[in-house]
């Protein structure tokens, strides 16, 4: 176990950072929002699949060439669809996905409130002697 502790978190990084801290931060943010399609539960920042390396290289190049974040996201989505984004975009087909958890909490609260209300109106049972 011990040798593992020494491994850097960014084991798959394969490049020198941007000299410009703003560009570096944008690049880092972008690769953390992009799904690796080969190993779907990893971002391309975490994955060392060859395709992930190619996509990092593309994104790095485009950031260096002055593309905006929206341009780059658009580049990825036209090729791989919304699935390549770790956070699905808000649109009619994903409204339920985004609002689902809040809806469930709301339903739970309503049921809870109703149970409390109904119980509060019942006379207390007498303690058995």
């Amino acid at each position, binding site marked *: 176990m011990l040798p593992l502790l020494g491994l850097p978190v960014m084991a798959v990084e394969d490049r020198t950072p941007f000299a410009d801290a703003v560009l570096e931060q944008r690049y880092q943010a972008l690769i953390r929002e992009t799904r690796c*399609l*080969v190993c*779907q539960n990893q971002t391309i920042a975490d994955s060392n699949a*060859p*395709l992930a390396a*190619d*996509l990092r290289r*593309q994104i790095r190049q485009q950031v260096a060439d002055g593309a905006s974040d929206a341009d780059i996201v658009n580049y990825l*989505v*036209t*090729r*791989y*669809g919304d*699935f390549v984004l770790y956070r699905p975009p808000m649109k009619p087909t994903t409204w339920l996905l985004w609002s689902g958890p809040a809806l469930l909490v709301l339903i739970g609260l309503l049921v809870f409130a109703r149970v409390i209300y109904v119980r509060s109106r019942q006379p207390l049972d007498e303690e058995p002697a």
Partner: protein
Amino acid sequence: MWRYLIPVALFVTLVWFFARGLYLDPGYVPSPFVGKPAPAFSLPKLKDPAARLERSDIVGELALVNVWATWCIGCQQEHAFLVQLASSAGLPIYGLNWKDDRSQALRWLEQLGDPYVASGFDASGDTAIDWGVYGAPETFLLAPDGTVLYKHLSPLTREIWSREFLPRIAAVRGE
């Protein structure tokens, strides 16, 4: 009445979603190119690095574009079927040789047969990204005007060919 019906309805809905989820393949990501023009590309040819294979070379008739590589096990599985198709399907098959070693790829075609009219040699993988490729083998069916009609992911078999490709080809040919 309602206090029993609502939970039961919720339960049935959940079970329906879970049951459906069991039969979905999470590895299958639908291609956003279906119904859209195939992306432009220009690659050196595998067999003749001085010549180039471009989008304009493959549009004009129904065509298949098959993404392959010698490191890809699924490509090995489907290769014999591709060789059969090349002589029987009546449409050209083009190859996109993805991040491969040129000499190994040439040897592979020599040993196993070459079903491709031509293969583009994509050493960097950039063309594959432009085509939304994420796992070889992938096979695109292109209409004569260059529209992507269908993309299949996983090795081709006769059964998949009859089920997914033939009806689409027949529709274009007006049969």
